[in-house]
């Protein structure tokens, strides 16, 4: 089974751009839209998703011989929920402010379709190496998607980049008659607009490359 289909290296590369979870598979939209108004939130979310994705992919791959077809989704969900609980508690213990800011979106990683999708299409059928590289590639792709949206939203919405962690100010503060941050970019509509425009840009580049 592991002989046909992409090699582990191809799986790794596919996850980053050709099958990017955000821009190509359009999975995991809930955190993508909800936590990307600052780079800190986006990267913390991406880190938590990466942890859960890699751990559950590895574990599912290890126990794939024991899976019963009619119970597999249940096993996936329980596995994911275990790691999500670990991630949630670790965040609450060591990054309390960030945990408060992300709020329900950390527990909601359980229903993040990227993870269950990778468990279903890859980890439950492939060996450890393929499952691991696949998970790492997808996690990097998700990080890239979140970071790109958060970059646009934080720079336009607050004028900063990593404003809280590093305090980098991209657009200098100006009097209101000269310039003002776009509040809409911090709010949910900004997430939809940014996602749509960036997805359009990605499709445009992909179409140009295909020619």
């Amino acid at each position, binding site marked *: 089974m592991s002989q046909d289909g992409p090699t582990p290296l191809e799986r790794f590369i596919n996850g980053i751009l050709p099958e990017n979870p955000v821009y190509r598979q359009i999975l995991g939209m809930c955190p993508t839209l909800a936590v990307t108004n600052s780079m800190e939130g986006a990267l913390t979310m991406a880190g938590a998703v990466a942890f859960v994705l890699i751990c559950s992919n590895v574990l599912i791959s290890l126990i794939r011989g024991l899976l019963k077809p009619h119970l597999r989704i249940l096993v996936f969900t329980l596995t994911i929920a275990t790691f999500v609980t670990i991630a949630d508690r670790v965040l609450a213990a060591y990054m309390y402010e960030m945990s408060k800011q992300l709020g329900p979106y950390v527990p909601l990683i359980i229903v993040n379709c990227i993870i269950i999708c990778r468990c279903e299409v890859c980890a439950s059928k492939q060996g450890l190496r393929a499952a691991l590289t696949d998970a790492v590639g997808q996690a990097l792709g998700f990080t890239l998607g979140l970071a790109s949206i958060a970059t646009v939203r934080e720079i336009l919405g607050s004028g900063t980049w990593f404003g809280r962690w590093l305090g980098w100010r991209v657009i200098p503060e100006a009097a*209101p*008659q*000269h*310039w*003002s941050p*776009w*509040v*809409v*970019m911090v*709010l949910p*509509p900004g997430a939809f*607009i940014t996602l*749509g425009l960036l997805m*359009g840009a990605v499709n445009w580049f992909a179409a140009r490359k295909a020619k």
Partner: protein
Amino acid sequence: MDAATQKPENVASAPVAVAPAIHIAPAPHLFGGVLTTRRMMVDVLLALVPVLVASLWMFRLYTVLQLAICMVSALVAETVFTKMRGRRPTLGDGSAVVTGAILAFSLPATAPWYVGFIGAFVAIGLGKIVFGGLGQNIFNPAMVGRAFVLIAFPVAMGASAYVAPTAGLDGLTQATPLTALKMLGQSTGLLPLFLGTTNGSLGETSALACLIGGLYLCARRTASWEIPAAAILAVAAISGLLGVLGPRTGWTLFHDLSGGAFLFGAFYIATDPVSSPLTPKGKWMFGAGFGALVMLIRRMSGYPEGVMFAVLIMNALVPLINRWAIPTPVGGPVPVKKTA
């Protein structure tokens, strides 16, 4: 429709009614070589002249400044975005100028430069070009741009932005009539509201100017008279009913009609042929819904005025209205074919 938006002249000179089927295409509908996009847009600009005069009288150079910023930005945006899509530039049809003008007339006089600039780019880009250009847009582009800058720059666009005591104009020292009514319970006299000697967005203050321009638009058939008529009837009915149920001192249905941006919206914005329904019946529904939403937002929400949101909400309902308002052909309804 794509070809029609690109080359209106060619389509206009083509023979009418080639196919016998009822053909419903997105507006503007071109026929007989008379009604071209450019003629309609020039008509709208001519109809805006009374509004411009009233605005110049009231806000002086601020009007010129905002109009210049918005119209130039809209033209630049149109050029840039059509180029990005690899289309022929469509500056000649005048739609970008009209979008810029409507946007400028809906801004506060002292709005900073970037409000009109970004508003125009969003109006043309997100309001029109992403849908495929003129004739394909679901929402009124100018109102999309205004909604964006309203949410993006609440300080520069909110109710407090209209009051600028340091600007050196008498009109800008008082709150807008609808804000004064909502926040302070103060009524404004009917004559100032009608003539436009009150504060407000650049184009909205004078009901008289909007009526003159609007009647010209309706007489030229550039705007469908059904939409403003239905909107005025709806606002008059709702405001009259509310006046009977809970009268406000010095505020009647005529104040509701001539105050705020209602007449400007009813004549210039809601009648945009692209984003309004196709049939007369649908236009009545559209106008009535628009008027009802304006009154709902004015009385029940935190915003003093609701023309922009009313137009956008009704734009979203247009496909549904079009489905409800399919006309019955002469000779009875077309029998529905049963699909086995």
